[in-house]
């Protein structure tokens, strides 16, 4: 059965080569005029309009991007209902949809022009390494809700496809510079041109900022803490169209980012990343196309750590704030050090066990062959098969030198059936198989009913699975002592559970799309009920090691039910006015298995369960209004509200906050050049706490200048 499925796309493509119908006779038929031109494709990879797609979709287009008050990519996601944008530190943003985000937003697929930028080594997206500037983006297609049936396991809660401007759509050179408080500086230059058969575009960007002001936080006062970032990226895009039916896109990029690992420790991290992306598309005939996508992502980063020796470790990991005694001293009665450790401490050399730096290396190769088939009336199919090889080397995360890798294969089928003029049925299925593991089968069904051109209703349900990432399966962060070749584990920081299981989501939704006044006004409503089980997180387990009494285990720790409603309204009555309003109401119920608490007595150990209530903001809202005056002066204002929430289960809830952003810009045109001056103010007014009490989001003022030539 599987083999047949694999052959089907190729068979279809082979068959398609034999068709040359009416048009070959030099005739133009009505079907030629009805031909569909590419529109929204990210949800099912078929050409579909918003009224046909089986999920709620938000498009952040170029006009919205230019109207927004965003200073970086993630700011744009506040324009999408249900999405939460937060900052773990000044340069470590997190983006999540409905579920609590945590330190790593594990369940969101982000693609740049179809290339996944999900980083398996950290089980999340590292926004700093994308190398995509706001000015590069043509539009962003956001699928709200699980899209595993089309985009695979990583699109467990939602997916983004960031579509950058084609090298064909621009010409000449563009230069931009930004300066603002908190050390904000950025310079970017891009050049698009046509070299014989090849349309090309180069983009170079350098940016830096100081991050949040941590000095005012009492615990950090006087300490040399910084969450600054310094980034440099180079990006090249090429487009070659040898014939009308074939197009070849390729992208190359590299980046270098110096930032910090995480909040509270602020140790340095230095990223270097590279990618190569190749896409060949052939429109085989009137009813099929085929696409081959190959890409390679490579990331390596070096983390600074506090170097310490065995003796110091005993104090570092044993210091107790209450009595000042080390763990060894305080728990001496319970903690029996192995004899070999005692021997080491008694007579062995005082060896360095935590190195000053740790290097990590991650590599991903991915190949996908996709075919869209429109040969049967009212039935359209997208079939894809893909394979991915992930590997990484990291001494710190894997407990020693060496490499772990995995190969995963996938088959996707999405089908759209126009049952009648008013009813469209979508079915999607994704079969994923990691070598030596059970396969998962995610599927989705949706019915879109078009009551009239203005009113479209959608009923959809999905079952989705997310396989644990390579890191989630293999993590074993330990510090060892080298006793003449024998590795003795002194301290285990984080370890993966041996039986970590697949995450599962069952989702149901009712959607409405209203298009009024010739689509100048649109209203999108989604009422949802999502149940997520076996979510992967960290729990604590009692563990008597030489230097510790508990251990963090990566395991299936959370189950959560999410219910609510979200809506967005967009109004563009004229070229001058743009209004975008969204709101989400979300109730989360569930529990998180926190595990062992050292303050508990022995009888209740391993039983601590934390409530997930209020771990996501119940209410979020965003309003963007932009108006361009005669003469080209444009004013934009946005208001964002986020209700208070607990950044972690069991944590103290953050206060609710509102922020106002303002932007004024003006563009001047001459015969062959243009120039733009802008002033953006984010969070005009009082500071607010951003995700953690020590992150203070102060007002930002940024002056921007752009110069372009054609």
């Amino acid at each position, binding site marked *: 059965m599987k083999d047949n499925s694999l052959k089907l796309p190729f068979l279809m493509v082979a068959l398609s080569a034999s068709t040359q119908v009416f*048009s*070959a006779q030099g*005739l133009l038929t*009505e079907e*030629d*005029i009805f031909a569909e031109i590419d*529109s929204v494709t990210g949800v099912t990879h078929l050409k579909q309009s918003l009224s046909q797609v089986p999920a709620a979709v938000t498009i952040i287009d170029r006009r919205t991007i230019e109207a927004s008050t965003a200073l970086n990519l993630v700011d744009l996601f506040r324009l999408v209902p249900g999405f939460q944008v937060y900052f773990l530190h000044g340069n470590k943003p997190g983006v999540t949809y409905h579920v609590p985000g945590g330190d790593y937003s594990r369940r969101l697929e982000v693609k740049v022009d179809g290339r996944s930028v999900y980083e398996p080594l950290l089980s999340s997206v590292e926004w700093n390494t994308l190398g995509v500037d706001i000015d590069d983006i043509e539009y962003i297609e956001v699928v709200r809700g699980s899209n595993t049936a089309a985009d695979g396991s990583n699109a467990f809660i939602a997916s983004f496809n960031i579509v950058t401007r084609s090298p064909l*759509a621009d010409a000449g050179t563009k230069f931009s510079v930004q300066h603002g408080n908190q050390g904000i500086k950025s310079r970017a230059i891009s050049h698009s041109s046509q070299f014989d058969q090849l349309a090309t575009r180069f983009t170079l960007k350098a940016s830096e900022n100081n991050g949040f002001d941590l000095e005012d936080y009492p615990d950090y006062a006087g300490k040399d803490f910084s969450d600054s970032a310094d980034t440099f990226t180079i990006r090249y895009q090429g487009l070659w169209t*040898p014939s*009308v039916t074939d197009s070849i896109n390729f992208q190359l990029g590299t980046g270098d980012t110096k930032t910090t690992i995480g909040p509270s420790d602020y140790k340095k991290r230095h990223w270097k990343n590279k990618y190569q992306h190749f896409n060949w598309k052939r429109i085989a005939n009137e009813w099929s196309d085929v696409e081959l996508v190959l890409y390679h992502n490579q990331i390596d980063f070096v983390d600074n750590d506090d170097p310490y020796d065995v003796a110091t470790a005993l104090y570092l990991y044993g210091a107790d704030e209450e009595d000042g005694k080390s763990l060894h001293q305080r728990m001496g009665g319970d903690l029996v050090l192995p004899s070999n450790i005692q021997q080491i401490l008694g007579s062995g050399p005082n060896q360095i066990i935590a190195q000053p730096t740790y290097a990590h290396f991650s590599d991903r190769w991915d190949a996908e062959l996709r075919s869209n088939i429109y040969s049967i009336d009212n039935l359209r199919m997208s079939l894809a098969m893909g394979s991915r090889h992930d590997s990484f080397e990291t001494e710190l995360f894997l407990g020693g030198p060496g490499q772990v890798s995995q190969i995963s294969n996938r088959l996707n089928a999405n089908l759209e059936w126009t049952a009648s003029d008013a009813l469209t049925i979508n079915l999607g299925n994704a079969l994923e198989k990691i070598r030596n593991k059970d396969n998962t089968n995610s599927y989705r069904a949706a019915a879109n009913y078009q009551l009239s051109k203005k009113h479209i209703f959608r009923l959809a349900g999905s079952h989705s699975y997310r396989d644990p990432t390579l890191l989630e399966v293999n993590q074993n962060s330990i510090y060892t002592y080298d006793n003449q070749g024998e590795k003795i584990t002194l301290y285990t920081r984080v370890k993966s559970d041996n039986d970590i299981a697949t995450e599962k989501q069952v989702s149901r939704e009712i959607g409405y799309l209203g298009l009024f006044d010739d689509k100048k006004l649109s209203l999108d409503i989604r009422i949802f009920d999502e149940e997520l089980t076996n979510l992967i997180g960290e729990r604590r387990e009692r563990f008597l090691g030489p230097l510790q009494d508990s251990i963090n285990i990566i395991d299936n720790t959370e189950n959560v039910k999410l219910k609510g409603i979200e809506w967005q309204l967009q109004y563009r009555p004229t070229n001058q006015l743009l209004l975008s309003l969204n709101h989400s109401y979300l109730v989360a119920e569930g529990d998180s298995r926190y595990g062992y608490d050292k303050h508990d007595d022995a009888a209740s150990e391993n039983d601590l369960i934390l409530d997930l209530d209020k771990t996501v903001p119940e209410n979020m809202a965003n309003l963007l209004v932009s108006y361009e005056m005669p003469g080209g002066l444009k004013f934009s204002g946005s208001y964002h509200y986020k209700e208070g929430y607990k950044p972690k289960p069991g944590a103290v809830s953050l206060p609710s906050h509102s922020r106002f952003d303002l932007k004024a810009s003006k563009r001047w045109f001459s015969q062959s050049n243009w120039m733009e001056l802008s002033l953006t103010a984010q969070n005009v007014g009082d500071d607010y706490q951003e995700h953690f009490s020590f992150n203070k989001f102060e007002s930002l003022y940024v002056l921007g200048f752009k110069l372009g030539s054609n």
Partner: protein
Amino acid sequence: MTKFMHIRIILNKVGKIFNLSCLCVLMCFLFLSANAASASNDKGSQTHALFVLSKDSTSYTHVVDLIVAEWAKNNQYAIVLKEEQNKLEIMLDKTDIVISFGTSAAETVFKNKFKKPHIVTLITESSFDSLAKQYFGTEAVALAAGISPILLDQPFERKIALAKKLLPKASRVGVMLGSATKEKITTYNNSIIDRKMKPQTLIIDAGKNPVRQLDPIIKQSDVFIPVADSHLINVTTAKWILQLSYRYRVPVIGYSSNFVDAGALASVYSSAEGVAKQTLELLGTVFHKDYTHTVHSPKFCTVKFNTNVAWYLNLTIPDELAIEAGRCEL
């Protein structure tokens, strides 16, 4: 899919039975009220139309549904797919008029040598010419045989007129033709010259790099008009036309609603509503004694704009230019 057609036919039959029942009740009422209503007159006012579809897809069924909504108020009808040959043959004997939707439906009816009036709709000029020659020898013979085509392709002049109204200062008009439309090059060029503009015409070669062919033409144009050609040419060139039009900030006037959704500034096209409206008008006149069968150009048009593209090009679209299946006063 044919199941849906069966259901539709069954529903039509149920509807006919219901209509007949209503008619009987009405006739009894008229008889009892001693008004000498003539049953034969009532029967005579009920014209039976047969709708023949090329495909059971929304492009065709939407037009049929719009026509049926009006037609069924006073008349009878049946719908068949062109593949349902047996049913078609039976229905052709019973019906007063045939309305075919699309090229292959028209061809099926031509093959059956139907002798009564036949309105051919949702057909391009190119397809009708070819079918008329194949089955009747000449277009004139086809018309004389009782065939009235309503063409789908909007006259090129309407696109030029729209371009002129949108961009009064435009002087250079880029036009792309393909192998199916290249014969019209002189007509189109003359149409542009008549409006005191300069044509820049490209006949696209499918085997060569489309960007290299399109780039110099779009670059030197103030407005670009791709003419609908074969499906493959339309689909494969649209993306590059639109991207190059953004590069050089040249507005594109397309030929379909899809083209506007994909990023053209505007399109002039025959919408389902416009085609239905004109077909209904023709159904009202085709039985008149003084009616002469002829080729009907699209009487109505829809003019649609992409406001985002207008914003990008910094153009203001006058409200009065937007037309929804109305009289094309361009």
